[in-house]
């Protein structure tokens, strides 16, 4: 079936809109994850989602409800607890990750929770998303974009130098904690789009590529957004064209985009080296 035919169906229309919004906005939070050294946060929040799902199943509720609550609570606690324990938020994430997976396994055993049902959270597909989930992505995407536009200088200060931000009067902890909560929400939604193991395709890979070639935060955010849209919607269209799983297809496009960016960067560096000599 030609691509254009697919787009007559609401399921594909929703998927395309979700891929553009999530790719274009969630990737912006990838810059926060990379800059603040939070690469373990996504694993921590995924494991907390598993614990939340286990709690839900133990209470005969839908696993996704507990998972979302756990992700939000986890991302709210992460920043303040890191400050109180005087630990890097990346290290606190490791603590959350191991603690919640252990608690989830105890629940599976003691409450006789069907573990595979809870692990089902980790699989996601953009084509399986409901209309409500698409609306949630649109709203969270709009909030992410609004926050980056409205608080651009404050975010820049916090990501550049938190001590300097505090000195100048920016509420650095509040800004960081707000970004952590948005990151948690984006990770939860990205899990529904590509599955837990491929969340990086939507969030981290575009940010890594953008940070290779951007010379300012504004450049990084624009490139990041473009790479995110290219990966997510490009991957979705590729999956329709050649019949591939959508999550894997998005990830392949994101990896290819990163390789292209890295190659361009390396050529530019070499050229500058020759010119300087």
């Amino acid at each position, binding site marked *: 079936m030609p691509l254009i035919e697919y787009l007559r169906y609401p399921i594909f229309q929703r998927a395309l809109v979700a891929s553009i919004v999530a790719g274009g906005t969630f990737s912006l939070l990838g*810059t926060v994850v*990379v*800059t603040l*050294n939070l690469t373990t946060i996504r694993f921590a929040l995924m494991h907390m989602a598993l614990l939340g799902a286990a709690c839900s199943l133990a209470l005969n509720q839908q696993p996704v409800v507990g998972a979302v609550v756990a992700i939000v609570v986890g991302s709210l606690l992460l920043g303040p607890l890191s400050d109180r324990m005087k630990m890097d938020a990346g290290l606190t994430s490791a603590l959350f990750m191991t603690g919640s997976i252990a608690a989830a396994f105890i629940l599976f055993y003691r409450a006789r929770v069907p573990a595979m049902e809870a692990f089902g959270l980790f699989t996601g597909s953009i084509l399986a998303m409901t209309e409500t989930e698409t609306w949630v992505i649109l709203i969270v995407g709009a909030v992410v974009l609004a926050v980056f536009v*409205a*608080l651009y*200088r*404050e975010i*820049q*200060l916090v*990501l*550049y*130098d938190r*001590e*300097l931000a505090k*000195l*100048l*009067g*920016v509420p650095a902890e509040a800004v960081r904690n707000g970004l952590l909560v948005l990151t948690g929400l984006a990770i939860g939604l990205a899990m529904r789009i590509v599955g837990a193991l491929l969340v990086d395709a939507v969030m981290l890979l575009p940010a890594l590529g953008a*940070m290779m070639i*951007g*010379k*300012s*935060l504004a*450049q*990084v955010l624009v490139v990041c957004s473009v790479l995110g849209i290219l990966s997510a919607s490009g991957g979705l269209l590729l999956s329709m064209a050649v019949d591939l799983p959508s999550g894997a297809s998005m990830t392949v496009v994101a990896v290819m985009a990163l390789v292209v960016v890295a190659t361009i960067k390396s050529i530019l560096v070499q050229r500058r080296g020759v010119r300087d000599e």
Partner: protein
Amino acid sequence: MVKSPSKPECAPAILLRDVTAGYGHQLVLDSVSLVVGRRESVAILGENGAGKTTLLRLILGLVQPWSGSIEIEGKAVESEADRRRARQRIGYVMQGSVPGKLPISVEDAVLLGRWGKAFSYLTRPSKQDRAAATRMLELVGIEDLKRRDCRELSGGQVQRLNIARALVREPGILLLDEPTTHLDRNAQAALVDLLRSIRQTLGLAMVVVSHDEDQARSLADRAYRISDLALTLDWGESACR
């Protein structure tokens, strides 16, 4: 005892009277007094961990005194609002401040120094802010690097950028915490020359924390030493007494 200044240019920019301070239950400075005139430069010497940075943090209002009083440019610093106002008048070059992972242009990194003074939430830096940033980059000699990513700068260039960012707030007081740490000898000498020239050009009150006696003599009119919780005059005397 602190004496009253007689000349207008000697009006105290910084005045600490019998200030005692510390962290938690640990006493770091005990009944410390210091006066720095508006065009004076003072060095603070001492071993690592003696309390030199704590003294700067007291002046900045980032550490609150247990007892004693602090005045910045003649105004008592008592409440949080006083501390915020006082910080508007102080430029601070932190020890070992190096660029992180974030790509940021040199111009933007300097402009950020005007946050809370010239622009703030939901407002953008104006043409005047950019002009001020350019002036400061010219003053520290790295205006040709303003479009460069900070992550590509050398140690000496980073420190010049940090000084430009502290000065772009148009402060009356400049605090420098070990400004030449991690720099090679040539870069250290160049930075000391730059700071001397800035002092002459802008006529600021300067407090330089250092463990290098020679550097302190190049930059300051007099030096105090922190040892055993006390601050004592090490050499030099104030022309304002």
